[in-house]
């Protein structure tokens, strides 16, 4: 994505060695009145960022709202009391556990299937590769609504009762291609001579895979798994069509909109957000160290 294109022209000699992040990238318009343009752009960017964070801030702040009514809309004073009453809605707690356990199971299955696919696509040339890519592209780009309705059509036609396990099936379906693509990218970039060396030194295929190949593609597998987990725990549309009477965290919130969303939802949302942010930051920092 980056490469020499983003290093400054003024120092052509050092392009190969200059750490590109340190270099002040010379943006296109940079003479005369462009300084004013820069300031406008800067302000615009921050306005958009504020807009992006506005609902998140509201979610976090209203978890501390001492609301008396069912609708948690207007500010009525600061309180910590909802933190002590997180379990007030057993159905909400149950829905959250459903979300987490579904995401864990779906991630495990997705990661296994997707990793195998990614290895096959990255390493081999075979008949049917184009068709596989096409189906994967379809899985990534088709509207969730179409996937949800067609899955429900299948389950109805086959007389399958929708519930917990049909949600797991659906979640594996929409995330497996993402894992396959992530792992494939990693496999394509592999140095084959390392595996060759292992085999020359007498390692069996099995040993070579687990001791050499797998550790090298592991970062791709981990980011694929994280992506699958994030997609699963956040999914609403396909889940609504395949869940029957099972409830997940997003489904419970959607159902509660009409009668009023309690502050507990804000707090649980804040906690999930915090965990996600922590993982993202750790991932960014460690990947920066790795490269």
């Amino acid at each position, binding site marked *: 994505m980056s490469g020499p294109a983003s290093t400054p022209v003024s120092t052509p000699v050092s392009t190969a060695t200059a750490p590109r992040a340190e270099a002040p990238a*010379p*943006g296109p318009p940079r003479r005369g009145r462009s300084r004013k343009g820069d300031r406008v752009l800067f302000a*615009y960017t921050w306005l958009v*960022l504020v807009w992006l964070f506005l609902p998140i801030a509201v979610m976090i702040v209203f978890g501390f709202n001492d609301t008396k009514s069912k609708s948690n809309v207007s500010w009525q004073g600061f309180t910590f009391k909802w933190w002590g009453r997180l379990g007030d809605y057993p159905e909400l707690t149950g829905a959250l556990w459903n979300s987490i356990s579904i995401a864990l199971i779906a991630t495990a299955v997705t990661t296994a299937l997707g990793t195998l696919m990614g290895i*096959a696509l990255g390493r081999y040339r075979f008949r049917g590769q184009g068709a596989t890519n096409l189906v994967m592209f379809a899985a990534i780009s088709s*509207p969730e609504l179409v996937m949800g309705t067609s899955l429900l059509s*299948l389950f109805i036609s086959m007389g399958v009762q929708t519930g917990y396990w049909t949600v797991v099936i659906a979640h594996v379906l929409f995330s497996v291609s993402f894992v396959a693509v992530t792992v494939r990218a990693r496999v394509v970039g592999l140095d084959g001579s390392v595996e060759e060396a292992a085999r020359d030194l007498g390692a069996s295929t099995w040993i070579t895979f687990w001791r050499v190949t797998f550790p090298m593609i592991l970062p791709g597998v981990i980011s694929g798994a994280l992506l699958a987990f994030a997609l699963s725990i956040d999914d609403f549309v396909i889940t609504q069509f395949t869940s029957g009477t099972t409830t997940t965290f997003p489904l419970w919130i959607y159902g509660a909109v009409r009668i009023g969303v309690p502050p507990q939802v804000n707090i649980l949302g804040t906690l999930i957000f915090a965990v996600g942010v922590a993982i*993202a930051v750790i991932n960014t920092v460690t990947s920066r160290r790795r490269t």
Partner: protein
Amino acid sequence: MRRKLAPYLLILPGGLWLVLFLVVPLVFMASVSTQEGDVVYGFVQTFHLANYTDALVQYKTQFLRSVGYGLAGTVAAIALAYPVAYWIAFKGGSRKSTYLLLVLLPFFVSFVLRTVSWKFLLADDGILLQPLKDAGMLPADFHILATSVAVIGGLTYCYMPFMILPIYVALERVDPRVVEAAHDLYATPRESFTKIVLPLSLPGVFAGVLMTFVPMTSDYVNAAILGGPANTMIGNIIQTEYLTNNNYPVGAALSFTLMAVMLVGIFVYARALGTENVLEAAAR
């Protein structure tokens, strides 16, 4: 022999899953869409193609509205995302990845919860409107919820990263030396933008349009939470037919039509821009 089989064995489990739960269900939905009957006495296959024409005649408004909202949301997303992506790519300096993380962070909160948060924010007596009403700056009956503005705003918000990221990637690839050359040849900043940077970044915009228009048009959560009865989109109709009315044939016919419209739209769009261009952009 074993080596030849290896890729197929590796593909098999995942490939089977995709075929069984993505391709096969489409066949079943096609079949359901031409059935007749009801949920009590069961549905029978009668190849009743009138399901399609009936559904289209009845829900033409919602169809057109969905496409309109999708287009408006996509245009709004470009207008908001392009300058931000530009600023991060060219002025972000050493803090590029921090800015990108900032752009992505809000999307770590559940999609439904974010939309519900907007409902709080925009509520008639909520924290944005009530103070303005108290100050007499807005009439007491002013509202944003249950208008098309709320729904389009919600759609734009939900799919922002899918517009910012592809544009950013395209801008990041623009070779600064080309821009430098334009300056050396006495191009004004405006000329170097419209003649160099903008054309080079268009593949990113095309990819962004592809990644936002389709999900926006088929969305029903924003219309359900932020819209009112006058803002129903086709997704809401499909959801109601499937999950409330148990009228699967009509829901399936609408869903199939939606998919066909999207496919034709993508095809026409790809042809208009040159197929390779879009495929290349989509492949990124």
